């Protein structure tokens, strides 16, 4: 099976809306944070529709709370489906975590215990979500800072088992692997080598803050060298894969992010030469 590679994208941020529309930058696609556009109308939504005319979109959510013991939020799923019908994204993704319970939202991506109970619970819910949406979704590995005593396996075994059971795919965040590896003391290559290449449909790259003893996934810095190294190794293992940079804070001018994206392009070129099959090149005219 050939893997669809959509090339190099960026997380679309408010600061860059106008620049994107006016300068039509050399980016193959944009990823949007789904919830930011679950509003009735107004400026951001109008920008999204304009940008959608020129670029494919990936929809990336933060509220699915797939691991929560709360019932699935059907109102959210309906809105998600409605937005997906409007935007026609290449992929819909969210995170392997829980964000709250009892209707209280932590607005954070909280870790799950890597237990059989959690595997069954999450896989079951992904199946329901995919049935409702009528399509497969991508699940992203989150950065984590603690391990529960209930965990019976590694994170990579946990995510592998879930995606196999639910038949969904993976959005592999290379920075999150690095951050978690440092915080938990595992070898990031053990993680990468354990993931089934056929399941990986997208990469995230991002910056973090290194405090020596631990690392926090802040998304407010340039991508660090060890993450670039890991990205190269991930390309070797997984093949050419849609890649993007996630910058959420301390946001630089669009040009700086594109320059950073060019580093990713360079690494990809080093690994594959010109031999990349871009499934969908953006029509330029």
């Amino acid at each position, binding site marked *: 099976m050939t893997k669809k590679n959509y090339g190099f994208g960026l997380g679309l941020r408010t600061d860059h809306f106008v620049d994107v529309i006016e300068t039509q930058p050399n980016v193959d696609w944009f990823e949007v944070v789904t919830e930011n556009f679950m509003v009735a109308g*107004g400026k951001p939504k109008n920008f999204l529709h304009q940008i959608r005319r020129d670029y494919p979109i990936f929809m990336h959510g933060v509220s699915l709370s797939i691991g929560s013991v709360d019932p699935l939020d059907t109102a*959210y799923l309906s809105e998600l489906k409605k937005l997906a019908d409007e935007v026609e994204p290449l992929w819909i993704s969210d995170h392997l975590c829980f964000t709250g*319970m009892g209707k209280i939202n932590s607005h*954070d991506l909280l870790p799950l215990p890597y237990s059989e109970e959690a595997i069954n619970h999450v896989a079951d819910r992904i199946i329901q979500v995919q049935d409702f949406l009528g399509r497969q979704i991508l699940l992203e590995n989150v950065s984590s800072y*603690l391990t*529960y*005593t*209930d965990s019976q396996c590694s994170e990579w075994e946990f995510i592998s088992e879930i995606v196999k059971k639910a038949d969904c795919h993976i959005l592999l965040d290379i920075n999150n692997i690095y951050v978690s590896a440092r915080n938990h003391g595992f070898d990031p290559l053990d993680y990468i080598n354990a993931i089934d290449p056929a399941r990986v449909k997208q990469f995230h790259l991002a910056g973090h803050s290194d405090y020596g003893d*631990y690392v926090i996934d802040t998304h407010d810095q340039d991508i660090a060298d060890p993450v670039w190294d890991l990205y190269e190794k991930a390309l070797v293992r997984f093949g050419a894969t849609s890649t993007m940079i996630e910058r959420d804070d301390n946001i630089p001018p669009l040009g700086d992010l594109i320059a950073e994206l060019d580093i990713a392009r360079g690494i990809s070129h080093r690994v594959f030469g010109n031999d990349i099959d871009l499934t969908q090149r953006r029509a330029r005219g």
Partner: protein
Amino acid sequence: MKETLFERQQQMMNYLLQGKPTIKDHIVQQGAITVDTRLHIYRNAYQQRLRETIDTDHPVTGVYIGDELFDQLVQQYTISYPSSYRSLRHFCDELPSFLADQEPFSEHPQIAELARFERLLLTVFDASDAPVIGLRELSGLKAPDWPNMKIQFHPSVRVFESPWNVVSVWQAIKDDLPPPNSLPSSEACLLWRNQQRMTEFVHLNLPELCMFREFRQGSSFAQVCEALLNVVPDDELSACAVNVLSKWAQHGLIGSLYGNE
């Protein structure tokens, strides 16, 4: 078996929201980082995120009350109103009523009013889209259709009425000027999102407020004019009414005209 996942999530949430320590017994001690530090990373992020949300949504209220009271506001509000919303954009929805009810903020009722004005600006910014009619469509209305004419406003249009002069306070702080003293007043403002999708507002005089209230509740132009007689002299009535309507049409506040179907 299901119990474990439930219990762990509950313990984690109780820790984040209230600092309850029962989760500590269920976290693995790994390497040089203590369990307390690991948990604290999450609690710190949680508190920081909510603080930033209040700060982003209510910058003017923040400046007005000063750092010390703002810290107190963040602490009390986040404990009293943990977010039950999907999006942080609604986290501060209860902030004005919290400020109105909770000491020490309630001793200065203008604080709650200022926050209410800031929230309304955000509501206007996020309102749904809809077409508007301009001056040309308005003046194209045939003479016999005027008496029954009713107005559907653009979904972003809101009126803000306050017993305090908080709009002037808001404007001064926004312009980096010392705010005027808080005074009881009968300010009324009309807010809307313009064609460039920017939020705008203007102060309303009495005839404008009267016309807006009447049209908003579904009155026809004839009924609006009758109500307007209470605040405008006879001979100025039609000029005044047409003037106000033209202004609304120019600003893109009128979604559509109806009443003559």
